[in-house]
């Protein structure tokens, strides 16, 4: 099955060491996305960089405490992305969010399952 639609890509940039209520921020946001029924979310780790605080982030495998740059990407329809933003406002203390308009094509296996495999309420 192939489905084409207009979507938004939202990316959040923060640090690997960032926490939210004692839990890694990246995991908290991914859980929140699932809860809101957003189609998918992926977290990428950068290998070097600096951000809002001008702290240089390194991801050294030899160091125990790491604070590599993290980028979390979410792609979904505009209304779902809009629903996510108020939650991010309270969760992301320091970071950058960028949103762009994208044209999306979703491929799904038609193995007799429901037409919307990703859309149940979380």
């Amino acid at each position, binding site marked *: 099955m192939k489905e084409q639609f207009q979507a938004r890509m939202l990316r959040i940039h923060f640090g690997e060491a960032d926490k939210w209520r004692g839990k890694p921020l990246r995991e908290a946001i991914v859980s929140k996305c699932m809860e809101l029924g957003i189609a998918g979310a992926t977290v990428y780790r950068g290998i070097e960089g600096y951000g809002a605080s001008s702290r240089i982030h390194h991801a050294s495998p030899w160091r125990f405490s790491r604070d590599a740059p993290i980028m979390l990407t979410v792609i979904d329809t505009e209304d779902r992305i809009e629903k996510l933003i108020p939650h991010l406002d309270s969760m992301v203390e320091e970071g950058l969010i960028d949103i762009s308009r994208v044209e999306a094509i979703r491929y799904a296996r038609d193995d007799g399952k429901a037409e919307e495999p*990703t859309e149940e309420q979380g």
Partner: protein
Amino acid sequence: MLKAGKALKVSIYVSEGAKHHGAPVCSSILDFLFYRGVSGATVLKGIAGFGADHHMHSSSIVEISDRMPLKIEFIETPEKVNEILGKLEELAGTGIIDVQETTVAKPARVSKPQKALPAEHLRMEGKAKLMQIHIGESDRWKGKPLYQALVEAMRANDIAGVTVYRGILGYGAHRRMHKDKAMRLSPDASIMLSAVDSEEKLRALLPLVDQMVEEGLVVFSDVDIIKYSYRAQDVDVPSTEARS
């Protein structure tokens, strides 16, 4: 390059252990001067001294001190100094900065013969499309990893370039959470391929992508590109103006 004549000599005094946003002040200042095109700078290490806090810093054994005084010195034109002084004040933090008028009697010469400049490289600006393909690491196509097959397919279709990224956490079509640690072992990480090229070339690739990707997400977005290239013949990005 600094010429003979009037110039300013700037000295910045900082402490060896001082930090600026987590990095040593001394190296932050040196990097700043280097990347802002200052013609030269020297860091001098003091062996003892005291500063505003009137605490004597010396390298006695008792105090294997990381608070030794450092002096960073450079000579530049007044215009250059004015341009960068503001940021230097911020970088120096509690340290003192002093500026003196000086005269360059003999400018420095580059000691090594300049390396042959790389052949004039080309800078092109234009509009292009970014194509991202989100799939799983364990997806396969004709017996090989799908991401690898896609890279080969793009290469065969002359797509300018593609990079494969592996996610460390996430969920996708199956709503299975892929987690950080387990991911090292599990081959089912989220994979993202990112390619930038002209819209026509990427669209032409779509029928092939349709066949290859059973489950996944492809997104297109408009991007402004700046492309650098060594080869002068390589001007095939449509709707771009080439500048050297």
